[in-house]
C-alpha cells in the first residue's frame, strides 16, 4: 500500500473510531414507569461484590417497581467523587461510604435525614453507639452496617513458645501484659542487639486513626466537647498507648522500628517469615492472612489489650454506612432498599464477604459468625465494646490529621520529638485548625 493509501486507511479507521465513540452516547434506559435508583457500592473484594450484587438482584426480583442499579465505586477519591456529584446534581441515590465522611456531607445538606424513613426494627437492632456515628445535628444521615476493630494477629507457635498467657475477650491482656508478652516473644539469639524476631510490628504509615482510636482503651478521648466546641487534648490517658509504642521501639527493642513506616499489608511478609510475632491490624486483614499465609503456618486472632476494667476493650471505630442523597427524588424507596440491605441476614452475608463485623446485634449472633476459624468469634465477642471513633463529628479533622497529626505522630514514633513536643503540636497548632472551622 502506498503512503497516501496508508494515510487514507488510517484516516478512515480513525473516523470509524470517532463514529464508534459518538455512537456509544450515554443516556439511561427507556422510561417504563419504574423508579430507578443508583446504588453506589464501594465493595471491592470479590466475595463482597458478589454478595452486594446478589442483594440487588434479590431486591429487583421482589420489587419490580423500584429498580436498583448497581454502580461500582472506588474507595480511592470517594470524597472528591461524591462532592463533585453532589455539586453537579448527579449524585447516586444510595451511597456507600464510611462514617468519617458523613459529617461534612451532612453539614453541606447533601444527605437525606433518615429519621422517620427507617423501620423501627432496624433502629432497635443496631446499638445506639453505632447510630451515634452517623448522627449529626439531631438527624441520622446513614445506616452503620459494617465495622472493623483492631485485633492482634498472632503467630501461634511463637506465642506458645513464649509461655505468655493466651488472652480472651473475657480476660484480655492488660497493656502491661502485652508489653511483657512482646518482650517474651522477642528474640536476639546472636546477641548483636538487633532482634531476629520482634514481639510486635506496629504499622504506622497512617498513624493517626489507630492512635486516636486506641486511646479509648486507656480512657483517652483526644477530642472533647467544651462549651459546644471541639477541643483537642493529649493528656496522660490520651497518650498512654502512643507512649507504650514509642517505648517498645526505642527503649525495650520489642517492636520493630522498620515497621513504623509500613502499611498493614507491608508487615505481613515479615509475619509469615517469623520476624514479627504479633501484628495489630484491622479485622479485615484476616482475609489477606488466610489467603497468603504459607501452608502449615498457624496463626490466631486475639483482642487488643485492655487499659483496665473500667475501660474494657474499648476502641474507636468508624463504621461503613449506607446513606441516601438529599437530591434523590425517591428518598423513601432508597431508604427501603437500605433497610433491606441491612437486614440481619444480609448484614451477615456482607460481613462474611468483607471479613468485617456487622453492626446488627442479631447478625452478630448468627452462627455463621460464631466460628473460631479465622478469629470470627473473637470479633463478635468484642463487638459490643466498640465505641464511635472520637474523630467522628469533628469538623476540620481531615485537615488536622493531614497537616498536623500525621507528621507529628510520625516524628514522635520515629523518636525525633518527645511527648511534650507532640502534645504541643497536636493541641497548639492542631487546635488552631479546628478553631477555624468553629467560628
Amino acid at each position, binding site marked *: 500500500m502506498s503512503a497516501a493509501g496508508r494515510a487514507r486507511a488510517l484516516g478512515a479507521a480513525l473516523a470509524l473510531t470517532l463514529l464508534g465513540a459518538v455512537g456509544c*452516547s*450515554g443516556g439511561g434506559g427507556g422510561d417504563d414507569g419504574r423508579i430507578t435508583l443508583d446504588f453506589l457500592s464501594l465493595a471491592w473484594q*470479590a466475595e463482597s461484590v458478589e454478595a452486594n450484587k446478589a442483594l440487588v438482584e434479590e431486591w429487583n426480583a421482589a420489587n419490580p417497581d423500584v429498580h436498583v442499579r*448497581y454502580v461500582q465505586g472506588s*474507595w480511592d477519591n470517594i470524597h472528591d467523587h461524591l462532592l463533585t456529584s453532589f*455539586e*453537579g446534581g448527579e449524585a447516586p441515590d444510595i451511597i456507600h461510604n464510611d462514617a468519617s465522611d458523613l459529617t461534612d456531607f451532612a453539614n453541606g445538606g447533601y444527605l437525606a435525614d433518615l429519621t422517620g424513613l427507617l423501620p423501627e426494627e432496624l433502629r432497635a437492632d443496631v446499638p445506639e453507639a453505632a447510630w451515634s456515628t452517623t448522627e449529626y445535628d439531631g438527624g441520622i444521615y446513614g445506616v452503620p452496617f459494617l465495622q472493623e476493630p483492631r485485633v492482634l494477629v498472632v503467630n501461634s507457635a511463637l506465642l506458645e513458645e513464649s509461655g505468655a498467657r493466651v488472652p480472651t475477650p473475657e480476660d484480655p491482656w492488660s497493656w502491661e501484659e502485652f508489653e511483657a508478652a512482646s518482650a517474651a516473644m522477642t528474640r536476639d539469639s546472636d546477641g548483636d542487639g538487633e532482634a531476629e524476631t520482634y514481639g510486635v510490628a506496629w504499622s504506622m504509615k497512617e498513624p493517626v486513626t489507630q492512635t486516636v482510636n486506641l486511646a479509648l482503651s486507656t480512657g483517652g478521648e483526644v477530642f472533647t466537647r467544651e462549651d459546644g466546641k471541639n477541643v483537642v487534648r493529649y493528656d496522660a490517658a490520651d497518650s498512654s498507648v502512643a507512649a507504650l509504642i514509642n517505648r517498645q521501639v526505642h527503649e525495650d527493642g520489642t517492636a520493630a522500628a522498620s515497621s513504623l513506616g509500613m502499611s498493614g499489608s507491608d508487615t505481613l511478609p515479615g509475619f509469615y517469615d517469623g520476624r514479627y510475632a504479633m501484628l495489630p491490624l484491622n479485622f479485615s*486483614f484476616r482475609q489477606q492472612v488466610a489467603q497468603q499465609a504459607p501452608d502449615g503456618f498457624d496463626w490466631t486472632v486475639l483482642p487488643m489489650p485492655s487499659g483496665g476494667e473500667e475501660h474494657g476493650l474499648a476502641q474507636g471505630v468508624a463504621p461503613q454506612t449506607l446513606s441516601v442523597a438529599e437530591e434523590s427524588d425517591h428518598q423513601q424507596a432508597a431508604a427501603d432498599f437500605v433497610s433491606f440491605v441491612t437486614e440481619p441476614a444480609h448484614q451477615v452475608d456482607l460481613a462474611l464477604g468483607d471479613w468485617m463485623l456487622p453492626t446488627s446485634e442479631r447478625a452478630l449472633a448468627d452462627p455463621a459468625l460464631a466460628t473460631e476459624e479465622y478469629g470470627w468469634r473473637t470479633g463478635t465477642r468484642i463487638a459490643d465494646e466498640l465505641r464511635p471513633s472520637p474523630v467522628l463529628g469533628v469538623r476540620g479533622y481531615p485537615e488536622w490529621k493531614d497537616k498536623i497529626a500525621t507528621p507529628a505522630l510520625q516524628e514522635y514514633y520515629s523518636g525525633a520529638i518527645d511527648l511534650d513536643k507532640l502534645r504541643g503540636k497536636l493541641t497548639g497548632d492542631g487546635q488552631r485548625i479546628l478553631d477555624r472551622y468553629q467560628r
Partner: protein
Amino acid sequence: MTTTPHVSRPPTRRRLARGAGRAGQYLALVCYLVFLGFPLVWLLSTALKSPQELGSIDPTWIPEHPTLENFRAAFDAQPLLRSALNSALVATSSAVIAVAIAVPAAYVMVRYRSRISQAGTVWVLVSQMFPFVLVIIPLFLVLRNLHLINSLPGLVVVYVVWNLPFSLWMLRGYVQAVPLSLEEAAAMDGASRLRTLTHVVLPLLTPGLVATLMFSFVTAWNEFFFALVLLKSPEKQTMSVILTHFIGAEGVADLGPLAAAALLATLPSLLFFALLQRRLVSGMLAGAVKA
C-alpha cells in the same frame, strides 16, 4: 607521479578513549533501559505469582510457581475488555480531535503574527496553570447542561479541552521549525496555500503530529478522575477507573489481580507507541527534499 594517500590514524590512546566512551554510552543506555523496564518486569512477575509468593519476605524476580490465576481472577471480577475498549475509543478520539484542532491553530499562531495570536499563546500558557480541582465542578455543570454526563462523547470533549493547550504548544514548536522559505518556494511554483499546507508543511510536521498524538492518547488513556466522576454506568467505565476496583479502603489491594489488570492496561499504550514510533523520524525530511 603517484601519490600515496595519506592515512591519518588516530593514536592508540585516542581510539581507546573513544572505545571507552562508546562503552560508557552503551552502559548508560542499558542502565536507562533497565530503569524504564523495571516497573513492567516487576508488574509481570507480580501478575504471575500466587498469593503465597506475593506474601513472601524474599520476593523473587521469577515466580517459583507461575500461575495465570491472577489474570482469571481479574477477568472474573471486572469487565476488563469492555473497559479497555471504552478507554481505546475515548483516548483515540480525543487524541485525533485535539491534534486536528491544534494543527491549523498552531500554524496560524506561528505564521500570522497578530495581537490575537499572541494573546492565544499567553492563554495557552495560562490555561495550564488552573488546578484540576478548580475546573471539575464547573465542567461537570456545563456537561450536565449539555446532557453529556455519563457519556463517552462527553469524556472525549473533556479530554480534548484538557489536552488541547499542551498539544497546541507542542505543535507550535514544530511549525516554527519548518523553514518559511519552503512555503515561499512552493508559492512561487504556483502552489495554493492549501496545497502548500498539505503537501509541504504537513509532511514535515509528521514527527510533531505523532508525538502530539502519543501524548494526547497516553494522557487520556491514563486519566482517572474525570472518568470516575463523569461516567456513572458500569458499562461505560474506562480502564483507569476499573483498576481502582481492585483497591479497598486504606489502600489495601488485591495485589495479584491488580497487577494482572494493570499489565493488560499498559499493552495498548505500548502497541500504540510501537506502531507510531517509526513515524517520529520518518517524516523529518518528507516533502522538503526531492528524491
